[in-house]
């Protein structure tokens, strides 16, 4: 059971990273990645909503009638989103102001509804939990990387700490929408490259082991 949970958890981080592999829920990815701080809070909110809604929907999956499952999912997700929104407003009012409409918009985020529909409603609770945490962390990591690129190039800082030397003139374009698209494009390309390399390596090692086995078989 533990192994299956771990695999489900890992699945959301690299092989099926919602942002970089599935490319869903792009709205906050492009909008809130102007600074790393914003992306961290956004990521935390998504992890919370995703894990909680995945768990609850998985628990309720036997009771929810098939025909009205989407409204039911939405009600569950909206509940947790409201909690996240109110908590964030209380704990981090400044960040809440910057994130603005994007926290309430988690309700309609593809990742959460997608995982509810594709995974939580079909799997037992412990896996749904692992999936929620994995996908949430995968999302958070992706937008943190994106936000890091954009903040360093566009503002010359990281987490608000000035990194670049005094003479550096930040490229404003990187914290404008075009910068988001350009960085995201390169990030997706890098991710494709990495996974392709990984796939080649695994298939090669498999081939190697199988050819070794064949060889051994011949000799035996």
């Amino acid at each position, binding site marked *: 059971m533990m192994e299956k949970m771990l695999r489900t958890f890992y699945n959301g981080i690299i092989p099926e990273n919602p942002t970089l592999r599935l490319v869903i829920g792009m709205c906050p990815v492009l909008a809130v990645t102007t600074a790393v701080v914003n992306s961290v809070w956004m990521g935390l909110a998504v992890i919370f909503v995703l894990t909680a809604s995945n768990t609850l929907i998985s628990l309720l999956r036997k009771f929810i009638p098939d025909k009205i499952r989407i409204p039911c999912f939405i009600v569950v997700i909206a509940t947790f989103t409201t909690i996240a929104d109110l908590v964030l407003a209380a704990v981090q009012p400044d960040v809440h102001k910057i994130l603005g409409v994007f926290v309430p918009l988690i309700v309609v985020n593809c990742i959460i509804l997608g995982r509810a529909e594709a995974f939580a409603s079909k799997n037992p609770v412990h896996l749904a939990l692992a999936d929620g945490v994995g996908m949430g962390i995968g999302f958070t990591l992706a937008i943190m990387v994106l936000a890091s690129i954009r903040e360093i190039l566009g503002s010359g800082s990281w987490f608000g700490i000035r990194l670049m030397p005094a003479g550096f*003139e930040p*490229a*404003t*374009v*990187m914290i*404008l929408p*075009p910068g988001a698209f*350009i960085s995201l*494009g390169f990030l997706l*390309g890098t991710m494709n490259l990495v996974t392709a390399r990984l796939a080649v390596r695994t298939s090669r090692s498999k081939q190697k082991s199988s050819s070794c086995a064949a060889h051994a078989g011949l000799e035996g």
Partner: protein
Amino acid sequence: MEEKKAVPGFDKLVVASSPHIRAVETVDRLMWQVIIALMPAAVVSVYFFGLRALVLMLVGIASAVLTEALVEKALKKEITIADGSAALTGLLLAFNVPANAPWWMVAVGAAFAIAVVKQTFGGLGANFVNPALAARAFMLAAWPQHMTGKFPVPLDSITAATPLAILKGTATGTLPSYLDLFIGNVGGVLGETSALALLVGGAYLIWQKVIDWRTPAGFIGTVAVLTWIFGGKGGLFTGDPLHHVLAGVLILGAFFMATDYVTSPITPKGRLIFGIGCGFITVLIRLWGGYPEGVSYSILLMNLVVPFLDRWTLPRVYGVTRARA
């Protein structure tokens, strides 16, 4: 069999498809022709703005060529820096910045043009917008403080507003005379100032059949007509078309950037429409838009509709009576 021995040297016969002769024109030759055509304008801008202009041009070229070589090396592709296309992009990019622009901005812009706009889409022939112009838009968004406002004045160390900004009314100053505009004795980016030098280069390209006259003619003609009709403050037909044509990067854009093969239509009719469309958008931006200059955005926008123009203006096929849908 004896006869065959009398005929020597048939061991290296090439068997290939017709045609067996090719015109001398090559991609390399075309690109270097355009670079040659830009030389008069380059010399004039060095004369007016000093060595600073030369440094910026060299930085632009060096950065573009180096980036192309590095990206192609990283992607394990053939290194094609000798074809001159990267050098041309770097030079055109430098022509689009003012003389007081920092050198690193030109270097980053040229690297962006090649690495992001050109090579990510597949290299030569595959980019869908003009690399130099896309990089200019990038620089304008990244470092607006260096790309807008007051530009250096020729042969002087002061800066002043560009003629187009004065014409638009967003800046104050006196309009330069037509003669100054024509020979280039005005403030502006490196390549925009001397209409004369650019026209010499453009005429050379048309004479050498490197570019099609339709694009610049449509472009400049449309700008002239529309600014004459709508450009005046005293009602219709009171505009100053000559000023709008000579000031700004219109001539540079019309002859050297709108005519970029890769990002302009492939059919003759399409090129004319492309030029007219560029002129239309330029006037729209200059007269009613937020920027004093609209040439580069107009070309970028028209670049995007090129596939549509191609399909829309297919030539009539011999022996086919009905026009194709």
